[in-house]
């Protein structure tokens, strides 16, 4: 039973293996703290939406199943959004539209379609939580890399000493990599991660 959860973390990681949920990875990974908040929200949404889609699976007409899934997902997304607004307003302001956009995150929909629609509630729930955690891990890695090279900080604390930076007298010294704070850099980082994962998997395959 627990396998449903563990599989999602690495073996079937939604971002790295299924290449889903990329859009939000581009948007919210400029800083580690933002990435983690987003990760937590997605864990909540995937877990509970999978659970409820699975509970309703026998009663949902085939022709409107997408709309049903979307309704359930959006219910939980709105809950998260409203909750953040009430209790964590500053964080919610930073995340802005991206929380609302979890609705369109293919990862959530993908789990509902591929797993929850056809499986009993508990496995679906574990699977959803696992998918969310796998997503959060990737988000944290990308966010960490981007914050480190784009701002020289981690969690808002300075890591790269200011004395390394170029000034107008020494224009050839270190600079923050501007590429890192624009969204395309997340693409490159994810591509590298996927590459590394594929290499690793191919190697495991060969050993076997």
């Amino acid at each position, binding site marked *: 039973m627990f396998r449903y959860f563990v599989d999602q973390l690495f073996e079937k990681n939604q971002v790295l293996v299924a290449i889903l949920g990329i859009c939000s990875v581009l948007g919210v990974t*400029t800083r580690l703290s933002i990435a983690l908040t987003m990760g937590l929200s997605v864990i909540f949404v995937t877990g509970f939406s999978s659970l409820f889609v699975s509970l309703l699976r026998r009663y949902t*007409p085939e022709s409107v199943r997408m709309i*049903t899934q979307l*309704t359930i997902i959006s219910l939980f997304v709105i809950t998260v959004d409203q909750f953040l*607004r009430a209790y964590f307003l500053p964080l919610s*302001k930073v995340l802005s539209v991206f929380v609302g956009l979890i609705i369109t995150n293919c990862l959530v929909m993908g789990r509902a379609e591929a797993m929850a629609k056809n499986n009993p509630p508990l496995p679906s729930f574990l699977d959803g939580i696992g998918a969310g955690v796998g997503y959060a891990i990737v988000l944290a890695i990308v966010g960490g890399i981007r914050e480190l090279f784009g701002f020289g900080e981690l969690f808002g604390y300075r890591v790269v000493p200011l004395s390394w930076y170029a000034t107008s007298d020494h224009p050839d010294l270190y600079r923050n990599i*501007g*590429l890192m*704070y624009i969204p395309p850099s997340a693409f490159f980082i994810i591509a590298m991660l996927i590459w590394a994962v594929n290499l690793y998997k191919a190697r495991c395959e060969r050993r076997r």
Partner: protein
Amino acid sequence: MGMKELLRKSLNRQLAATEEGQPLARLRPLVEALDHFFFDPDEQTPGPPHIRDGVNTKRWMTLVIMALIPCILWAIWNTGVQTLVYTSGDVSLMGEFFASSHSLFSYVSFVIKEGRWLTVLSLGIKAFFPVMMISYMVGGLVEVIFACVRRHPISEGFLVSGMLFALILPPTLPYWMVAVGIASGIFISKELFGGVGMNIVNPALCCRLILFFAFPAQMTGDVWVGTNPYIVRQALVKVNKGMPVVDGYSQATPLKRVNVSLDIQRIHVDAIATQFPDVEEVSTKNVLDPIWKAWANEYNVRESFGKLSQKTLRQFLITSKEGGGLGLSPEDYEQAWRLAQFQYEQGVLTNWNFFLGNKLGCFGETSTLFCLLGALFLIWTGVGAWQTMVAVFFGALGTAFLFEIPLLLSEDCGAFSPAIFSIPAYKHLLLGGLAFGAVFMATDPVSSPSLGLSRWIYGILIGCITIIIRVANPAFPEGAMLAIILGNITAPLIDHLVARWYRRRRSFTNYRTLIFIALLATVAALLLSLLSGLLKNQQNYARELDRSRQLLLSARICSPKGDLQLYEEGKYISAQHMGNGLLEKGEKRASGEDILAVYRARVSPFLVDRKGRRTSYENEGIDIEKYLQAWKKKECVEFLPIFGIIPNSGEKSFESYVVPVSGYGLWDRIFGYICINSDGKTIRGIAWYDHQETPGLGGEISTYDWQEQFSGKLIFQPDEEGKIDMKTSPLGVTIVKGRVEDVLGDVPKTMNAVDGIAGATLTGDGVMRAYKESLEPYRPFFENLSNDGEQ
């Protein structure tokens, strides 16, 4: 002969030692490369590009390098010449160079004189060779590592990519950036995709693209000569000493001159150009003359149009359109001047110089002439696709012409349309990297399409996008690189233009589905309204608290971490709430209740009318909450809301005033506060509390690090002597692109300017406009404040 046999023997031994299964098998690609370097390989090439005749990859690459030779030589030469002139700091040398650039003959005699050509050559070699060597060595290393790991042969293709990359770099780039660029670019564009012949985009361009987005300031900045930008800047400052800014020598590349804001209109440029001694008539003369006459009458100016002083001309241009002037914003004046110089071929900016390549720019791309020589060679040998090259030129020409058409057709010659549109189409072909890109980059056989027709479409697409980026996107000066990359990506698509239509699935509805949907919708609606009911109070409280906190932050009563603070002996120290709304020294964390209590005790909202007189909400019978809401929506205009800050001592007079500001950011409206000291001029602090800007980019306006630099700045822009006239000085805060000291240097204007946010130019512009528009109605009030202070 003996030598050759010896070599063959030694290579055979090495080949045998690195065969599959031998311990040194991983090094086989290295030995093979050595073998192929000396002897023609006898096996067939396994991967693309496949060429239909007997030319193999090696010969093919050699031909491209040969076609590049004119460009390489010119790169060395021109870099040398420009470095010599621009780093000298010698006014007479610069003048002589500018004067001699009018014809080929005088240009040649300028460089021959006093053996300058020797210095030029050595300077050029000094600038170009290190870059080329780094490109070859670092890129080669990546190539060799991957060849060994993946066990594929080392390809000669890299000789071309490495050279192309070196040729499209600005000479001022630090060496470590060259290394980073070539290593990451080759890795991402080529090796990750499986090596030679597998790349989707051109490797050299990909390297440049990465540098372009990673270090935008170094790749598109102003300084493009010599190897050390600092020296060049010093030299220019020395030369320009005592000259008005716009008249001085500038290090802007021709392309950078064209990269101006769309707010600069054709009539502005023409008005400036009329003052150049050698310009006889401008095309918008019919529109310009009446405006000038009316303006001169109104302001009683006697000077004759065509010989205006700098000051009068500037005044005429920046007077608003309602005031009878041309309505150019003062920040754009310099740019407009540079564009006028470019468009009316002042100094070295002639077509002939652009064609020959006597201009600033990346190493190899300056000369259209030598690119054309290379193109002829490539076409003659059948290596480059002529369709692509021709199509790029036509695509660019056509698109640039499309921008021009409305100007030609309209009655006033498009006097009030953006000036960039009026740049003649053919000039675009002589600028920047278009020619070099079209000839050497777009024709790369791996990443470009292979069918005749698709080459035409591909080329036209590239030309078209290049011009659109150049003309319509003020953020990027050059579009050739981005256009070619985009073309590369779409190339396979163009080659397989097969459209597939899916039959739409028809879903048919039945009774049960309807019921299910109705139930689902009802339950969802009920749940949501329950949720919003439960959280409403908490949300309102959080919003209220956040707004109060941000207002206090702008007034520097709140610290950036959300705690309270006191101002004592020139610095801020942490404080705690005493219970009556006032503060004392202390470390206790402030709760939400504390913040609200302090807000109630120390912030006193009141109103100001259009003449700057104070009045209160009670006097006017206005409900404060409703009025602030309406003000946010811009529904009321009569009274201006403002907040007075009562000092911690509890005195009655206000220590500062907070003004709400709003405007449009990149995505949506933005709301904030600006706190102004009781002198009515200096900023105490600012805050932006409600915005939808991109997190990490424009969203940085709500970070304290950025907001901090506002404190102590002026809200009025001082004139060149540093004086402020509260009636006429422009109100607002200037946000420069980059760092203030880099952009403006040391002028009084810096008192009114702050650093921009990298990668968020449009947000910066929005913020600037928000301050300008929000503060303007308060001008009489600030004037009164300042008068009170003086009495």
